């Protein structure tokens, strides 16, 4: 216990002395380089891609896309994962920003909407180039910041509506469906469900029997679907899932329940879902192009960092935009089975070619 007392005294002493002598300031050492300078030697640029985890095909493909881009410009990408843990994401970002931030380019998938502001402000303060994807609070404007270059997402309302319509068609325009929601704290989940509601309004004979969250998880979707199937029995004609993982979980549940008359739709176009659509067990999904997302974020940052593109030259509508997406059904699934990144997509003058317009 000797550990205690002497330490106590020392630490209190030092802190108090430090506090009284120097007072409090807002800045930690370092940081604060001017953002839009954009004159980095291409070789000095550090590329960082951060997603939730590598144990998810979509996000692993995202990082691989980032690697492909890095290779294209002769660099390597630092792959970070935070295991779906918001706190850990913040911790990693702040540690990252405490290092050399001069030519740092980050392509980040924030865990939830609320995780975006601190990342943005940290990057702004440190002068690191940041592109975020998917999650952002609606009232946070990219144009208010210099080093937050762009925010890319898919129009969730549109996706939710598209697959909702496809489902309605598959069940023949009338019947009961159940919905599996994503992590409720994400814009994506909310938007997609809003899309479903729009679709339901347009298809008045389709009835939403129940909606439960399965947190974007295949295993949870399996359990929830099993229970809901028991609860609603043969009334269930279709299952709307806010992503493909949950749709696949629902498919397993259907298979275990011996039901093959239920249509299932999802979003993301993960390989397994595409296979399922090819087989005819699943009805539709909407493409989200992981590899492209992994590359494009880095590409935007790289172009700005090396001075090939100036922040002020990026049109306001390209600071926060919807990327192009496609409804995939059995007739067009073959086109999407093996997504490839196209180097041309990442050229500095072609970065925004997939834009479907500014975020509303």
């Amino acid at each position, binding site marked *: *216990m*000797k*550990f*205690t*007392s002497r*330490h*106590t005294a020392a*630490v*209190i002493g030092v*802190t108090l002395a*430090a*506090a009284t*002598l*120097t*007072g*409090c*300031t*807002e*800045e*930690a*050492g*370092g*940081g604060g380089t001017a953002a839009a300078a954009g004159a980095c030697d291409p070789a000095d640029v550090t590329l960082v891609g951060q997603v939730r*985890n*590598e144990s998810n095909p979509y996000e692993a493909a995202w990082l691989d896309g980032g690697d492909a881009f890095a290779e294209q410009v002769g660099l390597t990408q*630092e*792959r*970070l*994962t935070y*295991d779906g*843990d*918001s*706190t*850990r994401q*913040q*911790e*990693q970002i*702040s*540690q*990252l*920003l*405490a*290092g*050399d931030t001069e030519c740092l380019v980050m392509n980040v998938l924030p865990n*939830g*909407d*609320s*995780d975006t*502001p*601190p990342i943005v*402000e940290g990057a702004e303060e440190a002068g690191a180039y940041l592109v975020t994807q998917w999650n952002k*609070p609606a009232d946070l404007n990219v144009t208010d910041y210099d080093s937050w270059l762009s925010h890319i997402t898919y129009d969730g309302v549109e996706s939710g509506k598209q697959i909702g319509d496809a489902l309605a068609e598959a069940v023949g325009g009338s019947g009961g469906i159940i919905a599996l929601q994503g992590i*409720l*704290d994400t814009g994506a989940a*909310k938007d997609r469900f809003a899309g479903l509601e729009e679709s339901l309004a347009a298809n008045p004979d389709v009835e939403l029997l129940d909606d439960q*969250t399965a947190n974007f998880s295949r295993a949870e979707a399996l359990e929830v679907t099993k229970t809901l199937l028991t609860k609603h029995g043969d009334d269930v004609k279709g299952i709307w899932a806010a992503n493909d993982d949950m749709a696949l979980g629902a498919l397993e549940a259907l298979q275990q329940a011996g039901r093959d008359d239920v249509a299932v739709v999802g979003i993301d176009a993960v390989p397994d879902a595409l296979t399922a659509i090819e087989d005819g067990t699943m009805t539709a999904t909407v493409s989200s192009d992981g590899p492209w997302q992994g590359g494009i974020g880095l590409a935007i940052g790289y172009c700005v960092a090396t001075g090939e593109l100036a922040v002020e030259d990026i049109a306001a509508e390209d600071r926060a935009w919807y990327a192009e997406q496609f409804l995939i059904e059995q007739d067009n699934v073959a086109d999407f089975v093996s997504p490839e990144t196209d180097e041309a997509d990442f050229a500095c003058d072609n970065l925004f070619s997939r834009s479907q317009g500014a975020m509303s």
Partner: protein
Amino acid sequence: MSAPVLTTPAPDAVVPGRPTVGQRLTSFMPVIALVVLLAALTVADPGFLTLSSLTAAVRTSAPLVVLAAGATLVVLCGGIDLSIAALCSLATVFFALWLPDLGGLTTFAIIAATGAIGALQGVAHVLFRIPSFIVTLGGMSIFSAIALVISDAGPVRVVDRDATNWLTLYVGGVVPMAFVVALVLVAAVSLVLRLTPLESWIRATGYSESAARLAGAPVDRVKIAAFTVSGACAGLAAVMLVSRNFSGSPTMADNLLLPAVAAIVVGGTAITGGHGSLWRSLAGALVVTLLRVGLPIVGVPSAYEQILYGAIIVAAVALTLDRSKVLIIK
């Protein structure tokens, strides 16, 4: 009193009253582990050992230190508090919801509220004699549920940042205020324990509850107090998290539970109670933080990062655990 009847020569007892070099070394093990880890990370990436990087690391560690410090008290009493992380998440939501009405008082209100919730768990534990593991496991799911319901399962933005701005300042330009607060908390609690009979009572309770009770130590009150402080610390940690994330969220701190317990154990506090200190948990929390943020930053791929994390954390405990104080390792 007359001379004792004992005529047998007393064994030449030279058992020293002061700790030996070895004992001293064991008590400094957490710090040694910390230094070794830092050195290893620096070897892996020489760019890691910079002032700003260390500053960021200690800033990151602040909520974990606070959480671990609070829970250490419960562990010292021989219990465990599994609810700290969920309570902390709940508190971030409370904070975000209350801030518009309470303004600058919110911080105090939060700490008082979480302290009261902690006390409630303590009361349930001592009154109904339910093992703390169960009470706090139940507490964990109940707090999560409340947080989900009152936040409508989504994050609550904090627009007015003035209330938490002070935590983002830096003392002397380098030491993050949040960490200073954590340090002051650890120092203050340690000091109070040391200067009052509390330390005796807590350790007696942890080592041997029945002996403590039969010696008239206020075992029940000490336990409730430990849970109260643990709860209040969860509240303080919540304020720190809000100051960092500008929002409250029903799951924000959930993933800090196992790191906090790991911090306590890595610090060398016996999970069975009695032996340990808050300072040890401070060192432990720094080790855990370095592992959490350091490994990926120095470029360890995520799969290997998890393997290394697992291995290092076990090794660290092997190093810091004072086995002379714990007879049977469960």
